[in-house]
C-alpha cells in the first residue's frame, strides 16, 4: 500500500514532465511540413496565405531544405527544373520518385492550386504575427509598469493595513476577471475612447496593447508588492530614524533590496502578455499586415491561431503550429529566465 501510494504520486509528478515534453514534440511534429517548407525564412517573411509565382519560391525552398537537411543530394537547379516539368506534365510516377520535401510541395500545390494556373503557390510567413505579439507586449508593459509599481508601493508602504487589505483584494479580483471580458469591454467601451483621443482605428495595436496592459497590471502589482514586503523592517526603520522621507526609503532602501524580485515579476508579466489570446483577439484587428503606425490594426501569434485554426488545413495548419512552436519557445525562455534567474535570486 505504501509502495503503491508512493508510485502513484511519483507517476503524477512525472505527468508534468511528460506533458511539457509532449507539447514540445507535438508542436514540432505538427509544424514539420511548414518548417521544411519555409525554414527559418518563416521568421522574416511577411506574406501569409499569399499566392506567389512558383519558380523563385521553389528555389528558395530548396535552398532552405538543403541547408537544413544536408542529406538532400540533388542539385538545387536540377530540382527546380524537375518540378517545372512535373507541374507541367502532372506526372504521378515522377512525383513518387521525388524525395519527401518535393512530395510535400507538390501535394500542397495540388491542394491549393487545383483549377488555377500551376504557376503560383501559397506561402506562409510568420513575421506579421511575431511583430504584432512583440509590439503589443511592449505597449502593455510600458503602460502597466508605472501604474503597477505605484499600486505596489501603495499596498506595501503607504496604505494603512485594512485599506491595503481591501484594495489588495480588489486588485486581485481584477486579475480574476476572465480575459474574454477584458476583450469585450475593451472593444466596446475602452477602444472608442482611446481612438477618440489618439485618432486612428478602434481596433489597433495601441488599443490591444493598452487592454493587455490593464490585464497584466494586477498580476504585476501583486508580485511586486510581495517582493517589496520581503524588505526587513529593521532596514526601513533605521532609514526613517536617520530622517529619510517615505520616498527616500522606497527609492534607496526598498527598491534596491527587492530589485531582483521586481524585475522577475515584470518578466513574468511579460510572459503572460505574450501568450494572451482573447483580450487581444477582440482588439487587434486580425489582419496579416505589418502595422504602419501605432494605431493601425495587425495580428499577434495567439490571435492568428485563434482565428485561423478552424479553417486551416494542410500547410496552413502546419504554419499555425509553427507559430505555436515559436510562441511556446519564446514564453518558455522568458518564464524560465524570470523564475530561475530573478525570482530564485530574490529568495
Amino acid at each position, binding site marked *: *500500500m*505504501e509502495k503503491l*501510494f*508512493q508510485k502513484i*504520486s*511519483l*507517476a*503524477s*509528478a512525472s*505527468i*508534468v514532465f511528460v*506533458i*511539457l515534453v*509532449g*507539447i514540445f514534440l*507535438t508542436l514540432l511534429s505538427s509544424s514539420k511540413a511548414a518548417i521544411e517548407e519555409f525554414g527559418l525564412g518563416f521568421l522574416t517573411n511577411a506574406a501569409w496565405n499569399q499566392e506567389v509565382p512558383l519558380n523563385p519560391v521553389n528555389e528558395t525552398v530548396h535552398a532552405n531544405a538543403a541547408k537544413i537537411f544536408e542529406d538532400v543530394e540533388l542539385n538545387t537547379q536540377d530540382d527546380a527544373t524537375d518540378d517545372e516539368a512535373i507541374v507541367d506534365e502532372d506526372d504521378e510516377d515522377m512525383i513518387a520518385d521525388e524525395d519527401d520535401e518535393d512530395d510535400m510541395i507538390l501535394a500542397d500545390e495540388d491542394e491549393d492550386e487545383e483549377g488555377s494556373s500551376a504557376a503560383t503557390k501559397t506561402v506562409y510567413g510568420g513575421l506579421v504575427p511575431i511583430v504584432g505579439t512583440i509590439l503589443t507586449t511592449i505597449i502593455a508593459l510600458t503602460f502597466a509598469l508605472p*501604474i503597477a509599481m*505605484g499600486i505596489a508601493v*501603495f*499596498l506595501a508602504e*503607504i496604505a494603512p493595513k485594512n485599506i491595503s487589505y481591501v*484594495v489588495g*483584494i480588489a*486588485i*486581485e*479580483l*481584477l486579475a*480574476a*476577471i*476572465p*480575459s*474574454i*471580458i*477584458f*476583450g*469585450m469591454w475593451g472593444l*466596446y*467601451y475602452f477602444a472608442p475612447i482611446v481612438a477618440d483621443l489618439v485618432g486612428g482605428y478602434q481596433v489597433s495595436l495601441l488599443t490591444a496593447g493598452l487592454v493587455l496592459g490593464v490585464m497584466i*497590471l*494586477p498580476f504585476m502589482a501583486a508580485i511586486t508588492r510581495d517582493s517589496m514586503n520581503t524588505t526587513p523592517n529593521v532596514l526601513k526603520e533605521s532609514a526613517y530614524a536617520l530622517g529619510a*522621507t*517615505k*520616498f527616500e526609503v522606497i527609492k534607496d532602501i526598498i527598491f534596491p533590496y527587492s530589485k531582483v524580485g521586481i524585475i522577475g515579476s515584470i518578466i513574468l508579466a511579460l510572459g*503572460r502578455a505574450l*501568450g*494572451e*489570446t*482573447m483580450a487581444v483577439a*477582440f482588439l487587434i484587428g486580425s489582419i496579416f499586415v505589418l502595422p504602419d503606425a501605432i494605431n493601425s490594426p495587425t495580428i499577434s501569434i*495567439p490571435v492568428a491561431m485563434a482565428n485561423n*485554426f*478552424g479553417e486551416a488545413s494542410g500547410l496552413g495548419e502546419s504554419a499555425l*503550429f509553427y507559430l*505555436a512552436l515559436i*510562441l511556446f519557445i519564446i*514564453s*518558455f525562455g522568458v*518564464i*524560465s529566465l524570470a*523564475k530561475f534567474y530573478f525570482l530564485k535570486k530574490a529568495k
Partner: protein
Amino acid sequence: MRLIVNKIFLALSILSALVGLAFLGWILITLFMKGLNSFHFSLFLNDLIDGGLRNLIVGQFILAGLAAAIGIPLGMAAGIYIQEYGRGRYANIIRDLSDIMMSAPSIVIGAFVYAIIVVPTGGTSGWAGAIALAIMMIPVVINTTDNMLSLVPRELREAGIALGASKYKVILDIVIKAAKVGIMTGVLLAFARIIGETAPLLFTSETSNYFTLNLSESFPSLTVSIYDLANEPEKASRDLAWAASFILTVLVLVINLTGRFITRNKK
C-alpha cells in the same frame, strides 16, 4: 524640496491605486449595466438555439468540473510527491517545470490537445476540452499543494510516525488534514481560473447551440459562445453575449471570493 518630492511621489502612488480600482469599477459597472439590461430568467431555461444560455452554462460547468476531477487528484498527488517523497533533483525539476507550465500560453495548450486528441479522434469533443482545461489546472494545484504542505510543521509528521503509522497514512490523515483549508482555497482559485478560460477550448470542445451531455461531440461552452456571439453583427447576439459575460463574471468572482473567505475565516 525633499518633502515636496515626497508629497508628489505619494500622490502619484495613490493615484495609480485609484487608476487600478477605476478600471475594476469601470469593467464591473459596464458588465452590470449591459448584463442586467439583457438579463432574464428565461436565459436559464432555454438553450442557445432558442436564445437562452442554459446549455452553455451547464456545459461550461461540466467541462470545468471534469477538468477538476482529472486535475485535482493528479495535481495533489504530484504536489505530495514533490513535498513529501521527492528529496533531491527530480522533485526540484518537476517543481520548476510545473511553474513554467503554469504560465504556458493557454492557446498553445489548446493546439497541443487539438493535435493529440481532436485530430486522432476525428473531431472536437467535450473530452478534449476537459483535458485541455485539466492541463491548465494541474500546475496550479501542484503549486498550492506544494506550498501548503510545506507549511505543516515537521513535528506533526514525526508524531504520526512515532505512533507507528506508515508514511502514506501520515500524509493522508495528518499532513493533508492540517493543510486542508489552504489547499481548498488554492483549488477553488484554480477552478475559478479555468471556468473562465476560452482559448484552450476554441478548437478542442468548440461550442454547441444545443443541450448535450455527450462528451464525445462538440460541447457547449459559455466562453467560446461569448466570443462567437460578440463578433456577430446583430444587436440581439451581442446583448446575449453581454448577459453571458455578466453571468460568467459573477460566477468567477463568487468562486474566487468564496476561496478567499474560507482562508480568512480559518485564520
